[in-house]
């Protein structure tokens, strides 16, 4: 097996490089614990769970998001809620494999290693080994965590292994697509499309068929539920996953053997020999650099908007016991509950959109550190004009992204309730009202890029703090003084709540002041600062 020489060393290299990224494993593995807690709390009795399962079975939104519950036991409901996890596990797995195969090759590091005592297939083998091992750890962790919550050990392990199986399949998909294109971006794109297709198949199958949708069987994402963890435990489904993984991995190795290092099986597409007349300003360049990122975010937000907006109308049906009915009445009946749900969703969209704003802003910094800013700034383009071309996307990009989510959610909810004319503007406003807080986060990224460029990624820490305050704060009952640090605390709850302009104006002014400080720093400092 000389083609695999050095695989062990490469595995250690990957583990060393990814030791922080690997934190996704415990994070995802421990998520189902929260399901146990929340289901126990809200649906303490078998009857309540039965109602919950029945209602969920009949809600298109829930079926789309998680699949169909196979029973109403605590374990079965937890397994059903975990139906979304294979998507996440699959995504992380394929990204890991491509990151350590095609990305390495594209950067030329594969060549550096290839000239040492490392076999032809060692890189691919090492990446697949790490991804598979990571998923095994995830399976064991998840199983142990759920067993620790008092659920049956066998079922808990079956659920963990079911999630990991999706990881194994899509790690192999990543290994395969990494052989196809010269660029890692293209390989990621094809693999993510495959993952998306599997998800759509599962949704279509689950929505169409009562019980066992035939289409669903074609989707590896659905197999975790087909195993029936905590139920009959059809472990033979795992053989299906293992078989598919093996076939894909063998195909990846076969393709890898047929090509040269650096080359892809699909020919690299050529670009135009001359620039279009419009490509003559920093802004037109920024559009070329940002458009696919922006389109990806808009599409993702639109899908999320459709799914979460589609759930809104069924929220009211989930409340059955008397205690909850009382709370419901105090919130203004079913309409009030739905509004509260929609406002909560919009708050979540705001927080996620801040992630886009930070990502777009940090392009400014990555252009600088990749030395692509320098040749531009040596032309007649001034620093502020250059920075402004990227900041246009950190300011206007979130508008487009949130509008996509708001429109999609409003339209879906409006169609469900037959009230499109009223719901679309209400929900859209709820999405757009998040903007001032999003801009504050973008401004923090601008300020860091201008004043402390080496610390620019710390903008993510600011977002993590906002996420913490927004999601954990209310549960942990943090003091209002602490909560007020997050700009999102000051955003009015809409639809449903009273919208006052004062906090919004303040947030915009604060964002402008922070951004201006950063730009002043950018004008003074050395470029590039590496």
């Amino acid at each position, binding site marked *: 097996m000389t083609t695999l020489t050095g695989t062990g060393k490469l595995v250690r290299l990957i583990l060393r490089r990814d030791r922080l990224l690997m934190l996704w494993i415990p994070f995802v593995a421990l998520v189902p614990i929260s399901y146990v807690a929340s289901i126990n709390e809200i649906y303490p009795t078998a009857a309540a769970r039965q109602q919950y399962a029945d209602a969920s079975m009949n809600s298109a939104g829930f079926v789309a998001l998680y699949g169909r519950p196979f029973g109403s036991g605590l374990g079965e409901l937890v397994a059903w809620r975990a139906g979304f996890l294979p998507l996440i596990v699959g995504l992380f797995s394929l990204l890991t494999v491509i990151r350590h195969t095609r990305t390495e090759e*594209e950067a030329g590091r594969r060549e550096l290693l290839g000239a040492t005592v490392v076999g032809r297939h060692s890189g691919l083998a090492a990446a697949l080994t790490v991804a598979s091992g990571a998923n095994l750890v995830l399976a064991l962790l998840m199983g142990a965590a759920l067993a620790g919550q008092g659920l049956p050990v066998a079922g808990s392990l079956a659920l963990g292994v079911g999630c990991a199986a999706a990881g194994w399949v899509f790690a192999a998909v990543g290994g395969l697509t990494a052989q196809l294109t*010269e*660029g890692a*971006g293209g390989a990621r794109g094809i693999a993510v499309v495959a993952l998306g297709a599997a998800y759509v198949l599962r949704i279509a199958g689950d929505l169409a068929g009562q019980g066992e949708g035939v289409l669903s069987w074609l989707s590896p994402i659905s197999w975790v539920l087909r195993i029936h963890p905590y139920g009959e435990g059809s472990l033979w489904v795992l053989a299906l996953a293992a078989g598919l993984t093996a076939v894909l991995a063998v195909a990846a190795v076969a393709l890898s053997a047929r090509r040269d290092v650096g080359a892809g099986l699909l020919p*690299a*597409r*050529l*670009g*135009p*020999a*001359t*620039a*279009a007349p419009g*490509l*003559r*300003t*920093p802004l037109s*360049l920024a559009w*070329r*650099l940002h458009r*696919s990122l922006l389109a990806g975010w808009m599409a993702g937000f639109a899908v999320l908007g459709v799914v979460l907006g589609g759930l809104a109308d069924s929220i009211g049906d989930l409340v059955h016991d008397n205690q909850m009915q009382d709370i419901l009445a105090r919130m203004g009946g079913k309409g009030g509950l739905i509004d509260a749900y929609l406002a909560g969703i919009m708050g979540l969209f705001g927080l996620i959109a801040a992630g886009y704003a930070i990502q777009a802003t940090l392009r400014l910094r990555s252009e600088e550190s*990749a*030395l*692509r800013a*320098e*040749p*531009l*700034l*040596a*032309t*007649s*383009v*001034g620093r502020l004009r250059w920075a402004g071309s990227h900041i246009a996307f950190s300011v206007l990009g979130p508008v487009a992204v949130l509008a996509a989510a708001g429109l999609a959610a409003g339209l879906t909810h409006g169609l469900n309730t037959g009230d499109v004319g009223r719901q679309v503007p209400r929900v859209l406003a709820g999405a757009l009202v998040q903007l001032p807080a999003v801009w504050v986060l973008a401004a923090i990224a601008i300020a860091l890029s201008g004043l402390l460029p080496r610390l620019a990624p710390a903008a993510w820490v600011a977002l993590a703090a906002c996420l913490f305050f927004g999601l954990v704060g209310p549960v942990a009952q943090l003091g209002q003084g602490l909560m007020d640090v997050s700009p999102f605390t000051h955003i009015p709850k809409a639809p449903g709540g009273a919208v006052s302009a004062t906090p919004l104006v303040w947030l915009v002014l604060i964002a402008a002041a922070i951004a201006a400080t950063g730009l002043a720093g950018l004008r*003074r400092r*050395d*470029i*590039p600062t590496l």
Partner: protein
Amino acid sequence: MTEAIRAEGLVKAFGRTRALDGLDLTVRTGEVHGFLGPNGAGKSTTIRVLLGLVRADAGTARLLGGDPWRDATALHRRLAYVPGDVTLWPNLSGGEVIDLLGRLRGGLDKRRRADLLERFDLDPRKKGRAYSKGNRQKVALVAALASDVELLILDEPTSGLDPLMEEAFREVIGEDRGNGRTVLLSSHILAEVEALCDRVTIIREGRTVETGTLAELRHLTRVSIQAELAGPADGLAALPGVHDLQAQDGRVRFDVETGALGAALRHLTDAGVRGLTSQPPTLEELFLRHYDRTGTPGEKHAEVSR
């Protein structure tokens, strides 16, 4: 205006390292000026100061009659810059980058663009991520050379080019010299500077150590002599200015300082010369002497003469 670039006493510190330590550089309008120094000598930092990307801690710099920091955008319309480390946008084709950079400067000569693409054998349709290092360098070079500008600032422009393309580059710069363009060419490839440059500035550790025409610089240096003699050349080693003498079977080989050349040759003729070859110092030798870490050229002379 007779000087395109004048920098005096530039100082720049990055943290504790002093990248520039009182550097002087003067480039006359219309000349091709070689800017020589080993890696880390401060060439790129000097260029970034001249481009207004980096602000010097002390010293003055004038570029095309303006202040490179304050008047950066106006001055940049009149110059083109090729960085030492060219990175391109992965999703833009080479042709798009050439056009974009040209448009952001003073404009682009379309005929020259086509001509340069052909001479550098560059496919402009490839995407940035698909180019090799040498081809990325060519994209930046075509963009700069086809731009309608009066000053070219080239930071190690041929790194990554194969010898054939280096030759093409020399031809193009040679032609440009006739058009009155000023070129600042930083390099550590000495043959390139020797072939192209009117004047040279040599820097070391952020300081200018020599500047002048190649002829002027050679004055400072030694000539290598190899001779076949009829008789013994006793006393040659004792002559002032003669270094590294090797004598064997009537052949001698030594280096001599230019000022002591006459005396040394007389000594040889007295012994009877059968054959003689002399070689002017190559820039390599100049370079090695200046960057010999054991000390400055003067000290070394003294030590060897003793």
